[in-house]
C-alpha cells in the first residue's frame, strides 16, 4: 500500500528510530502487490455479500424491532434515517435549509456528505445511503489489514483480521438502518491506521500533533471515536521509542487542543453559513457532558466522591463487553493481542477501559465493542497462529495447510456472530436486546 517516494536521508529522529525499533512480537512482512489487490477486492466485496444477504434474510434491527422500521424509496430503514434525509436538500438543492447542523448531523457529516453527493448524482436516496455504508464498511476491512501489519501481524494474520472486521457485528448490525452508523463505525480502523502511520513515521512534532488533530476532527465528523482515539494516540506515542511517554503526552495534548480549536471553528462556520441547529438537537449523547456533568453538579466532597464512583464501570459493563464481541471472538482476540506485544496490549487495555466507561454512559453493544478493530487483529493472529501450530503437527507446516486452517478458524470466529444467515438469529436479537434504549418483544 505504501510506496517509497523519493527517499531522503533520515533525520536525527529517524536515525534514532532505526536504532531503537519497537520490536513487535511477530515478525512483520509485506503482502505481495498482486495479493494486495486481490485482498482489497475481496474485502470490498465482502460487505456487498454480507450486507446484501441481510436485505434478503432480514437486517438485524428490522428483525428485532420491525415496528420502528420505515421505508425510503419503498425499502426498509429505521425511522432515525429521517435525521439525515431531512438534510439531503441542503446538499442537493439551492433551497435554504430550514435548520442548521445539529450534533446528530455534525457527528455524521462526512458520511452524510458522501451520501448526499451520491443522491445528487442518482436521485435515489435509499441506494445512496446504502452505497456510502457499504463503501466505508469495505474500507474498514482494508484499513484493518494495514493497521494489523503496522502492529506487527504477519500478512496472513492481517488478512484474517480484515475478514473478521468485515464480518464484525458492529458493522453488520446497523446496515440498512440508514442512520449511517455503519459508515461511522468504519471510521475507527481507518483513523487508527492513520494515527499509527502518523506516529510511526518520523516527522516534526508540530506536524505530528497537527496530523493527529485532523484525525480527531475527522473522527468527530464520523461518530465520536475521538474520545477513544485520543488516549490511543497517547499510547501509540508512548510506545514509540523515538517519542516516549513524556513527549507523547505533550503531542497528544497539543493534538487535543488543536482538535478543540478546529471543532469550535467548524461549529461557528456552520452556525453562520447554515443556520442555528433547531431540529433534532437532543438526538445525541455527548460523552464529555455525560461524564463531567455529574461531577460538575456535585456540591460537596461526598457528592464528588459519589459522582466519581458513578462513572466507574461495574460488572454489567464487563458482561456487556463479553457478550458484544461473542466470547469465542473475544478470547481469540485477547490471546492474539497478547502475542503481538506490549504496544498492542497497551492499546487494547486502554481501549477496553474507554469502552467500559463509554458503556456506562451509553449502554449500547457498539460502545461495549469499542475496540473491535484491535480484537479482530488479535483474533486474526490467534487463528493464523493456531493454524500454523496444527499444520506443523499434521504435515510439517505445509504453507497451504497453514493458510487453510487459519482461514477455517477465522471463518468459525466470523460464523458465531453471523448465524442469522443460517436462520439462527439469537446473537443478532440479543445484540439489539442489550441496547437498553430499545426494547421489543412480540
Amino acid at each position, binding site marked *: *500500500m*505504501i*510506496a*517509497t*517516494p523519493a527517499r*531522503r*536521508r*533520515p*533525520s536525527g529522529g*529517524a536515525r534514532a*528510530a532505526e536504532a531503537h525499533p519497537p520490536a513487535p512480537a511477530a515478525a*512483520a*512482512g509485506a*503482502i505481495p*502487490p498482486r495479493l494486495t*489487490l486481490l485482498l482489497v477486492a475481496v474485502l470490498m466485496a465482502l460487505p456487498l455479500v454480507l450486507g446484501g444477504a441481510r436485505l434478503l434474510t*432480514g437486517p438485524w434491527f428490522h*428483525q*428485532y424491532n*420491525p*415496528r420502528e*422500521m*420505515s*421505508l425510503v424509496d*419503498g425499502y*426498509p*430503514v429505521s425511522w432515525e434515517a429521517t435525521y439525515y*434525509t431531512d438534510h*439531503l*436538500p*441542503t446538499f*442537493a*438543492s*439551492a*433551497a435554504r*435549509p430550514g435548520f442548521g*447542523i445539529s450534533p446528530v448531523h455534525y457527528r455524521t457529516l*462526512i458520511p452524510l*456528505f*458522501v451520501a448526499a*453527493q*451520491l443522491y*445528487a*448524482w442518482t436521485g435515489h436516496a435509499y441506494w445512496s445511503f446504502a452505497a456510502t455504508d457499504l463503501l466505508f464498511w469495505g474500507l474498514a476491512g482494508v484499513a484493518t489489514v*494495514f493497521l494489523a*501489519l503496522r*502492529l506487527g501481524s504477519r500478512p496472513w494474520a492481517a488478512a484474517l483480521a480484515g475478514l473478521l472486521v468485515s464480518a464484525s457485528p458492529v458493522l453488520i448490525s446497523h446496515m440498512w438502518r440508514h442512520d449511517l452508523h455503519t459508515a461511522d463505525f468504519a471510521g475507527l480502523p481507518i483513523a487508527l491506521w492513520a494515527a499509527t502511520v502518523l506516529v*510511526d*513515521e518520523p*516527522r516534526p512534532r508540530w506536524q505530528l500533533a497537527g496530523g493527529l488533530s485532523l484525525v480527531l476532527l*475527522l473522527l468527530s465528523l464520523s461518530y465520536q471515536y475521538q474520545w477513544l482515539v485520543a488516549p490511543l494516540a497517547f499510547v501509540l506515542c508512548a510506545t*514509540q521509542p523515538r517519542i516516549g511517554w513524556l513527549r507523547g503526552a505533550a503531542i497528544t495534548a497539543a493534538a487535543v487542543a488543536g482538535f478543540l480549536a478546529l471543532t469550535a471553528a*467548524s461549529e461557528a462556520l*456552520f452556525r453562520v*453559513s*447554515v*443556520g442555528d441547529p433547531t431540529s433534532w438537537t437532543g438526538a445525541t449523547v455527548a460523552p464529555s457532558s455525560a461524564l463531567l456533568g455529574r461531577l460538575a453538579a456535585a456540591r460537596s466532597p461526598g457528592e464528588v466522591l459519589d459522582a466519581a464512583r458513578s462513572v466507574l464501570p461495574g460488572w454489567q459493563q464487563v458482561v456487556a463487553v463479553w457478550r458484544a464481541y461473542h466470547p469465542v471472538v473475544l478470547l481469540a482476540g485477547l490471546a492474539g493481542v497478547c502475542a503481538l506485544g506490549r504496544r498492542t496490549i497497551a492499546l487494547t487495555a486502554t481501549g477496553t477501559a474507554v469502552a467500559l466507561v463509554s458503556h456506562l454512559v451509553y449502554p449500547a453493544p457498539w460502545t461495549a465493542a469499542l475496540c473491535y478493530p484491535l480484537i479482530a487483529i488479535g483474533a486474526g493472529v490467534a487463528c493464523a497462529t493456531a493454524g500454523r501450530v496444527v499444520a506443523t503437527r499434521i504435515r510439517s507446516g505445509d504453507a497451504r495447510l497453514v493458510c487453510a486452517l487459519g482461514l477455517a478458524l477465522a471463518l468459525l470466529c466470523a460464523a458465531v456472530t453471523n448465524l442469522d444467515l443460517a436462520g439462527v438469529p439469537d446473537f443478532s436479537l440479543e445484540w439489539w436486546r442489550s441496547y437498553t434504549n430499545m426494547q*421489543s*418483544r*412480540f
Partner: protein
Amino acid sequence: MPATLRRSLVPLTVTGAVALGAGQLVLVAGASWPATRDGALKVLLAVLLVAVAALTVGALCRGREPGPPRRAPVLPAGALRALPVLGVSAVAVALPLLGQPARLSLTLYCYLLLAGVVWWVVRRGAGARVAAGAVCGLAAFTVVAATAQLPSMRFIEDWRPDSPYKWAVGWPTESWRLRHVVRLPGPGPEHALRLRLFLARQYDGPARVFATVNGHDVDVELTPSEMHVDVPAALVGGASELDLVLRQSPPDPRLRLLATRWVEGASRGAGATSFGDGRRWQPGTFNDALGRPQPGVLTLHVEGLE
C-alpha cells in the same frame, strides 16, 4: 507495450467488466437506460470516475506497506505540494455553488477534508501524480453533484400497501379474525401487560375492534396511532403464551394494522400471526389491498416485560 499502459490494462479491464455487469444488473432490475443526454453523460462520467478509482487502488496496491517502523523513510513534506491541487479543485467545486452559502460552505468544508485525506493516503502509496489524479476525480464527482437541483421531498414513509417489507392488514368481512400468539419468556408475571399494535392511520370511524386473550374477552383502546389491548394480571400470571384474537365490527377498510415481513424477532417466528374465520387459521397475513396472503407478522409490542 509501454509499462504504464500494461500496468493499467488489468484495472481498466476489470473496471469495464464491472461497469458492464452493473449496467446489466440495473437494466434487469427494471431501470430504463438514461433517457436524457444529461443522464447518459452522467453514466459516462461515472464509469470514468470508477476507472480513476480503480487505477488509484491498483497503484496503491503496487506499493509496499513497510510494516512496523524499522526503516521507515522520512517522507518529503507534502502539504505544500497539495496546496495547488486542493486550491484549484476547491475553486472548481465552489463555482457552481456561488449564491448558495449553506451548500457552498458545507460542500467545500467536506470536500477539502476528504480531498486532503485522499491526497495524503494516495501520495504516500503511489506518489504525487496519482494523488493529484485521485483528487481531481473527487473534485469532478463533487462538481457534478454541485450542479444538481433536487427539490425537497418527504423521503420517509411508514408503510406502503404493496410493500414487501411493511404493509397494512384489515378485516375484510365480519367473520374475519386476526390472531397473534406471543410466547412469554418463562411463566407470565403477576401483573397486567399491554399489547400494543400499530395503526396504519388514525381512525375515528364507526368500527370497533373486539379482542380475546387465551379465550377471554379483554379491553381494546384506540389511540391516534396505536391499538392497546390490556391483558389483566389474572390472565398473565403463570401463562406461557398470550393468544390474541381480534375481530372488527362493522368491517371498515380504513381501520388497519401494520404488518411486517421479518418474523425472526417474533417469539413464535413465522407462525406468530395467522388469519381466518376463528376455526381454520392460515399462517401469515392477508394483504387485502393486493388480495392475496403475504407471509409476515403483525407489528406488536408487549409492554410490561422489560
